[in-house]
């Protein structure tokens, strides 16, 4: 991980909540409640721009990195067809013992600017 990546934006853009994507995730979950759950966990913030962008902006070495933590804070579920403004950024990067920790924050706002969901993701990478 690049210790200088703190504060870097991974992606900031508008995107539409696609019904087909909700369906794909519901299918992957494979339960009666999959569609409801998909409306809460449709996106994994760090890879919204694709994992190549994450690797590039965070300087992640995929062969040595693991996901250590993930949090979701929900104001409400996503709605099919709505447009969101998403911002994903590197909140912090620091060394601790033999590991490097990287925190990626993702914020999803609706067309009125109201927060719909926030995520915080912790990556661990062996030095």
């Amino acid at each position: 991980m690049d210790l200088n990546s703190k504060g870097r934006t991974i992606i900031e853009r508008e995107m539409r909540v696609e019904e087909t994507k909700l369906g794909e995730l519901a299918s992957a979950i494979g339960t009666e409640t999959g569609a409801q759950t998909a409306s809460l966990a449709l996106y994994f913030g760090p890879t919204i721009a694709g994992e190549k962008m994450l690797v590039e902006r965070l300087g992640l070495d995929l062969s040595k990195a693991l996901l250590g933590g993930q949090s979701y804070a929900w104001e409400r579920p996503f709605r099919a067809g709505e447009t969101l403004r998403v911002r994903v950024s590197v909140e912090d990067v620091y060394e601790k013992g033999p590991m490097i920790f990287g925190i990626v924050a993702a914020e999803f706002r609706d067309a009125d600017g109201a927060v719909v969901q926030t995520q915080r993701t912790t990556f661990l990478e062996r030095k």
Partner: protein
Amino acid sequence: MAIREEKVPAPVSRVQIARYAGAVGDFNPIHLDDEFARAAGMPSVIAHGPLTLTLAIDRLVAQCGADALRSFDARLKAPVFPKDHLSIAPVEGGIEVKNQEGKTVVAATVKTV
């Protein structure tokens, strides 16, 4: 809201992992390529951490509905592999996700309305 112990209905599968990769656009080879996973020290591919979390959240949704969930803050403690049978168990302030051997793979705090 009281959370009940509950099994995830089906074991984690490679097809499910591939479907999840496509749905969220996370094609990290550790989830899809056994050779890459072995080089990274794993016996095989592993499930995406967020997939494991999503399966746990799905059990919470089944118990209390999507509108009732306010936050889910998880630490991933062990990898999840294809064919693992997962279950959620209530603990103080949240849940633990365990595999078929009773090993905790995720510990999470949960807040509901």
